């Protein structure tokens, strides 16, 4: 499994870089907390409305934190002009892409580890297994899609504008299904979460397969 070891090497490299510089995760964690503070002013929060509003706040925050995290994953490579050096090795572009997406997803998970407890603490909503699993499952699919388009816009003009424009519409299924699961988990909405979990897994598989098929067209010339 040479591709697997390459993907892991790429992910390890990105995580090591982040650990040394600590430029993304601390900033994103602050952003996440700030988003909750802003939401507090924007919505009428009380014990009754919290379960209805908190899921929305969660996904809004997650989506924008994700855009930043995935955008950074390839913006850093572009600024250092290092992506090409990686591609000009016998390593498969799809393996390189998988490593980048894995690292970016893990960094977002770290932010989620701040976001979810903060949400539970500030808005007094329960943090159940369903909520956490829905968020984590959505993160996988969002990461592969986000990184694919981040890799694309890193090579395009007006990239700051284009990334949300391309990514957000395709993230909507994750937000719809994950959002429903979180609403149920937080005591609003109705219905079970088991179908949501399996749907999220289906979507993850679909997008992981699709992105690995097209990654080389986006990365390589």
């Amino acid at each position, binding site marked *: 499994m*040479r591709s697997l*070891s*390459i993907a892991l*090497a*790429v992910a390890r*490299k990105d995580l*090591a*870089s982040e650990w*040394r*510089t600590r430029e993304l995760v601390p900033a994103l964690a602050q952003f996440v907390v700030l988003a909750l503070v802003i939401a507090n002013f924007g919505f009428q929060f009380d014990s009754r409305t919290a379960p209805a509003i908190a899921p929305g706040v969660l996904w809004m925050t997650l989506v924008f934190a994700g855009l930043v995290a995935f955008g950074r994953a390839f913006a850093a490579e572009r600024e*250092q*002009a*290092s*992506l*090409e*050096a*990686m*591609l*000009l*090795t*016998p*390593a*498969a572009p799809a393996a*390189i892409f998988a490593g980048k997406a894995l690292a970016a997803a893990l960094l977002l998970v770290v932010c989620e580890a701040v976001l979810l407890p903060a949400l539970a603490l500030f808005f007094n909503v329960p943090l159940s297994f369903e909520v956490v699993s829905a968020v984590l499952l959505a993160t996988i699919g969002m990461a592969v899609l986000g990184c694919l388009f981040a890799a694309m816009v890193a090579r395009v003009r007006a990239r700051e504008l284009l990334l949300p424009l391309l990514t957000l519409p395709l993230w909507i299924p994750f937000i719809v299904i994950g959002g429903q699961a979180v609403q149920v988990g937080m005591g609003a909405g109705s219905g079970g979460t088991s179908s949501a979990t399996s749907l999220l897994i289906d979507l993850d598989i679909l997008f992981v397969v699709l992105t690995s098929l097209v990654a080389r067209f986006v990365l*390589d*010339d």
Partner: protein
Amino acid sequence: MSAVVASALSQRFGIEVALDAVDLTVDTGEHLAVLGENGAGKTTLLRIIATAARPTSGSIAIFGLDASSERRRLRARIGYVAHTPGLYLALSAAENLEFFCALQGVDRGRVAEVLDLVGLGDVAGRPAGKLSRGAQQRLAIGRAVLHDPALLVLDEPDASLDSGGADLLARVMRDRTAVIATHDHALANRLCPRTMELRHGRVAGVPTRLRIVQ
């Protein structure tokens, strides 16, 4: 045998023509310098030879293999130093090379060897971002020869090299086929028996074919 055989290479970006019908042959072991002003098409040509870009039209074979369909195989035999060093600035010099060992499938023992070759043995543990421009360029050259490539493609490697840079270039080019882009005619004549000039994406004049020193 020829290491690089290219015919009628053209590269277009929309209505912009970067390279127009360039023919090129580089023999195995030969050192060729590509001269020309900024925007003459040097980088475009070198990127095509390094398999970083594919031409809009024309064909190129490297070591007898088609450069677009056999890219992955060829990349194991080509070393490329781009315009910018393209290093991971937060990682140390050694870590940068170790990462590329993993990508190239080369043993990590090669790292120390290469660091000594490019004269960075003392600063192996320093983050690449903390190295001088010259040292960064040396590291990029070291990365390009990590996997002992048979063909070396160097895009203005002298741009930020310190004193002794020309010696380093001569050392890494020895026993390899090399194509090097530069502004510096003196350096080109020193390193390469043959030079070729690009002007507006075309070959200017007849390549001066001096004797190939092996």
